[in-house]
């Protein structure tokens, strides 16, 4: 489904703030694979995700979805294939617009907007059903502005919006990091439910090792712009936090132990 071949990204090349953030990342995700991504601050996780989403162009390498080379596509063109939830709950929704309007926009992801009326009566019932599945009482608030919702409600709504039109690839960048632990767990459970029910190919960044181990069927660890660890299947199922730390040390070299501890 997703194939990434040896991509490189350097920010601010030729200046003192030059940063080689991705150093030849390659990965292949078969359809339906749910990959959790971990790694210390600045490891390049978000840069990898933004490269896939097209927030900025990569310097070299190739990105393909479903066999289609999208390396040179603009961000909004890739949205046809990709659903996203950001770390910042403000990022994924339009705060000044009603829940209904946000859902209407998401229900047309990847289509050229026309001069037809945006929210139609027949959509409302469908929206209400979808909102009901979130169990947050949002089904009665179609006309509320999204800005009035809590962070957790907004992330749940964003998740719904990102998956309304089935994406070929779902990108989640620490989408529970800004939430309190209880809400984070709720949103995470919802994520698992949606991803498994709809069999979505997913990349999820998290700082929580336990979540990374619990969720998904593959785990990758990034360090310094590269993928250091890549485990899947039964090996992943039986993995513990301790194993992870050990693997990290082995792969990254012993001098990096302090960074490894940062992760736990």
């Amino acid at each position: 489904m997703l194939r990434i071949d040896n991509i490189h990204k350097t920010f601010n090349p030729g200046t003192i703030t030059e940063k080689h953030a991705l150093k030849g990342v390659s990965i292949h995700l078969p359809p339906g694979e749910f990959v959790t991504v971990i790694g210390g601050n600045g490891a390049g996780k978000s840069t990898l995700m933004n490269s896939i989403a097209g927030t900025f162009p990569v310097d070299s390498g190739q990105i393909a979805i479903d066999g289609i080379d999208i390396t040179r596509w603009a961000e909004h063109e890739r949205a046809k294939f990709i659903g996203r939830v950001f770390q910042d709950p403000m990022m994924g929704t339009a705060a000044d617009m009603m829940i209904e309007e946000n859902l209407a926009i998401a229900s047309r992801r990847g289509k050229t907007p026309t001069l037809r009326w945006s929210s139609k009566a027949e959509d409302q019932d469908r929206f209400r059903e979808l909102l009901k599945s979130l169990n947050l009482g949002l089904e009665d608030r179609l006309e509320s502005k999204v800005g009035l919702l809590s962070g957790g409600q907004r992330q749940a709504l964003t998740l719904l919006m990102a998956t309304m039109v089935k994406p070929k690839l779902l990108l989640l960048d620490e989408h529970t990091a800004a939430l309190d632990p209880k809400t984070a767990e709720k949103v995470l459970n919802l994520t698992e439910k949606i991803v498994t029910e709809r069999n979505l190919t997913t990349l999820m960044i998290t700082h929580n090792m336990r979540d990374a181990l619990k969720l998904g069927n593959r785990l990758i660890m990034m360090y310094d712009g590269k993928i250091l660890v890549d485990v899947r299947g039964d090996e992943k199922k039986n993995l513990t936090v301790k194993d992870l730390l050990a693997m990290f040390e082995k792969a990254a070299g012993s001098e990096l132990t302090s960074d490894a501890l940062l992760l736990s």
Partner: protein
Amino acid sequence: MILAISTVSQGLLWALLALGVYLTFRVLDIADLTVEGSFPLGAAVAATLLTDGWSPIPAILIACIAGMISGVVTGILTTKLKIPALLAGILTMIALYSVNLRIMGKANLPLLKQETLFTMYQPEGLSMPVTVLLIGFIVVLFVAMINYWFFGTELGAAVRATGCNPRMIRANGINTDVMIVLGLLLSNGLVAISGALVAQNNGFADVGMGVGTIVIGLASVIIGEVLFGTRSFKNSLISVILGSIVYRIVIAVVLQMGMPPNDLKLFTAILVAAALSLPLLQAKIKKRSVQA
């Protein structure tokens, strides 16, 4: 009475400018200074065509298209060439000064004997001031309804979302550059119509008539929002129109009270500065009272 009527009429004719400023300042979240050039552009195009013997409605439509083009120029400067929106608007505005002089051939073009929208469609038995009021009302109502319709469509919703959260709308597959250009196009089209109508009402087009229009537009938007609310898009549209009328009433009152007309722009600027800083001041006062 005549003064009251002409004050409200002025408010209506300028309401199209206020709606244009609302579209950029509030909907797109851009302070677009193109209006200072597209307002006299609309006036210049309409006045020139009228003196060339065109009839008013086609002249106003061409003026609108000219305004739209100026909006597209600013839009391309800011989206494709990455010039900050404020500066892009200033560049277009300055360029339009020369363009407007070229269109008119001189700095001031009187419309003395020409038929205007108001003389042409003056109903029998109705005085000129009442006619302007009536026609102004019809035009504003029509334009407001078109805006309400457009911003309720899929495309209009995408423009609104672009101003609200560009990352979100890009993640949903919309090209935000196109939406920004479209918003600037619509805004400056409205502003040019406003200029064309004001010129016909005043009886002349002047190359300097754009000075301060952005501030007048902002004043109308803010006054309208404060007094009449922003609950929904429809509510905001009505508020902005009413805000433009209230602004004209305020101006008429302060002039009646003896303020020299030359001080008007200073007065308006202070008014807008005060209104724009109001939320900040309110927050500060709140903070202080919480601390105390």
